[in-house]
């Protein structure tokens, strides 16, 4: 695990419940969060999807975490498939892109989470957990 360091990083998680209707039980491109301003610098460190409602039928949906709008730079991605969404509580770890610092957000960058087109499940539910690491910062100056 990361070692303790008084001048080191802290972590923050943003957990978002993804419903079936409109997302897993759909095929179209759709936004989960569009251009949310974080307001402070941080780095995306992990993307996890936890199954909260068992998925049915062999659907497949990709979840992209982007810096900017729905066409911004992909900083994290995860594929939701029947194999990983068929059992309650399963944690499906996604991939974070750290090359060239693309996973680093400054105070004015925005966060978007979106689903590109895919194959629909007939049901299912997921909690998406984004983990960010953050250095101590001054106030909102």
């Amino acid at each position, binding site marked *: 695990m990361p070692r303790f360091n*008084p*001048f080191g990083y*802290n972590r*923050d*998680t*943003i*957990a*978002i*419940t*993804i*419903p079936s*209707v*409109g*997302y897993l039980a759909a095929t179209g491109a*759709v*936004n*989960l*969060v*569009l*251009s*949310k*301003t*974080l*307001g*402070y*610098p*941080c780095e995306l460190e992990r993307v996890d999807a936890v199954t909260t409602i068992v998925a049915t039928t062999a659907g497949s949906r990709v979840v992209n975490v982007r810096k900017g709008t729905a066409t911004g730079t992909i900083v994290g991605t995860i594929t939701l498939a029947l194999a990983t969404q068929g059992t309650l509580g399963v944690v499906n770890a996604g991939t974070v892109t750290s090359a060239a610092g693309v996973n680093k957000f*400054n*105070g*004015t960058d925005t966060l*978007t*989470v*979106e689903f590109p087109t895919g194959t629909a499940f007939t049901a299912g539910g997921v909690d998406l957990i984004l983990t960010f690491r*953050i*250095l*101590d*910062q*001054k*106030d*909102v*100056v």
Partner: protein
Amino acid sequence: MPRFAPFGYNRITLAITIPGVGYLISTSQANVAVSKTLGFAAELEKMDVVTTTVGVGAGGSRVLNVRKGNATGTLCGTATIAVATQGTLGVVNAGTITTANGANKFLDSDTLTVEFATGGTTYSAGGLELLLTFRVRNQNAY
């Protein structure tokens, strides 16, 4: 943007899923979370409401309040949720934070309440994710 500082602030995000039934599909006062003790000192910095189920219902509108204390405590954040602005999945609706007189500053013994005010116009469907961002200083365990 905030500058880095070795003994400065950090952030935490508290996410709460708000279903339509009982909250948006209603005109009554309803608590989403009442008198939750945070247990550490924090300042409410941002309040964002994300549409996760499209809002339906002509004229649907509700006021969502964040309070320090119980359901009648000091107002420290508010957002008006309306079908007109909740008609598209993923839309982020920013609320307003009250900083006057330190209203947004929580001691470790303060409690947090999130509640829908009485009134407004009911939705027939809808769903939200509430994202509360707090800034926090490094603190001792106790």
